[in-house]
């Protein structure tokens, strides 16, 4: 495979053809905030938190879906990017009902971590306080749409890794939501194997185990790399991540 050389934040790096900007940055510990991206799942470029600036291109491009090119000059952290990222997190916060103080995922939440990472001191937009549902029909788990940021990780892990395809995305814009089966209750779907993968990859407290209370729902994402490495390389790595 051909090697590409590129400049990131003023330093020179080399990368393999076909690699994403995000992959190169992760290899070299250059921080870029991400939300919809999760190692081991397909890439959808939906949340736009990972946007970077590329010289000669007036548009901001997502690092997770953009492939490296020879001679690319990339900035990953500029006042403009920081402002956009803060706007994205502020919009996510204002579009749902995120009440950290009473959330099962408090202190273990990627949305919370992102708010700190981008320095979200307050939200200027009006909060929408949407009237969202909570589905507690499943024997083991709960889906609280109030805390869903529509990253679609649950949809992808269930389809791509578990092969059950319980989840889907329905509606558009502000009415967009995650649905189970053909839009009915999660507990009524015939396809769910109760594997819990969607719960573990969910970045917020939207998907959680029954019986947990405030701050108790810790997600363990190590299983994903474990399964995928086992399937692809027939190697059994440690799950502790």
């Amino acid at each position, binding site marked *: 495979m051909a090697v590409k050389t590129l400049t990131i934040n003023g330093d020179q790096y080399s990368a393999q053809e076909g690699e994403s900007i995000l992959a190169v940055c992760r290899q070299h510990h250059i921080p870029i905030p991400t939300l919809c991206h999760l190692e081991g799942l397909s890439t959808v470029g939906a949340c736009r938190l990972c946007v970077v600036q590329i010289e000669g291109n007036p548009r901001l491009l997502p690092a997770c879906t953009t492939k490296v090119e020879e001679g690319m000059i990339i900035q990953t952290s500029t006042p403009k990017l920081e402002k956009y990222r803060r706007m994205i997190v502020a919009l996510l916060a204002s579009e749902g*009902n995120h*009440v950290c*103080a009473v959330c099962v995922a408090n202190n273990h939440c990627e949305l919370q971590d992102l708010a*700190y990472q981008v320095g979200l*001191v*307050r939200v200027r937009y009006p*909060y929408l306080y*949407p009237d969202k549902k909570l589905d507690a029909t499943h024997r083991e788990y709960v889906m609280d749409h109030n805390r869903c940021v529509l990253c679609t990780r649950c949809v992808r892990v269930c389809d791509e890794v578990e092969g059950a395809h319980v989840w889907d995305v329905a509606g558009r814009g502000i009415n967009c939501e995650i649905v189970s089966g053909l839009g009915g209750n999660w507990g009524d779907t015939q396809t769910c194997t109760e594997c819990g993968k969607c719960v573990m990859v969910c970045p917020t407290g939207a998907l959680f185990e029954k019986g947990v209370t405030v701050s108790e729902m810790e997600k363990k994402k190590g299983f994903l790399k474990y399964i995928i490495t086992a399937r692809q390389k027939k190697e059994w790595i440690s799950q502790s991540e």
Partner: protein
Amino acid sequence: MAGTETKPRVATVWLGGCSGCHMSFLDLDERLLDLADKIQLVYSPIADVKEFPQNVDITLVEGAVTNDENEEMAHIIRKHSRYVLSFGDCATTGNVTAMRNRFGTEALIDRAYQELADISNSKPNDHTLIAQLLPQAIPLHHVIRVDAFLHGCPPTPDEIWFAINELLNGRIPVFNTQFLRYG
């Protein structure tokens, strides 16, 4: 008391919150004595002052703006304070107080005064006596300009101590790195 006029004038206000933020303030414990030397507390739920005074240097505001009385008070606070600090998550995001927003005020009043009533089940109707709920409980900075934000439900005594000391030293406290947190 000699020399009190020169000490910074500090106020704390309790709007639509559970008083937990003020409890955390009281948890400053022995540091309260230290603070009493440095400031003059001119208005607070823990001091018996009826009217919000003029020329306040720093005002800490707990709670969301949830009724017409809070809204009026917010404007009075802004008018008479040099620095206004949103004190805790309810003031900053609406937090727990704003969880009622999806239900509408009618349903809320029915629930509180009728469905859950043990004895009398009459609804409040004299709004000259009882504050009227706004359609939604909202963060303080959506009503008035706010100079700094202290997060947490409630903020810890250490965070409160840091914020007050920064303000007393004439600096706007910056929580981005050290104390930025929700919940």
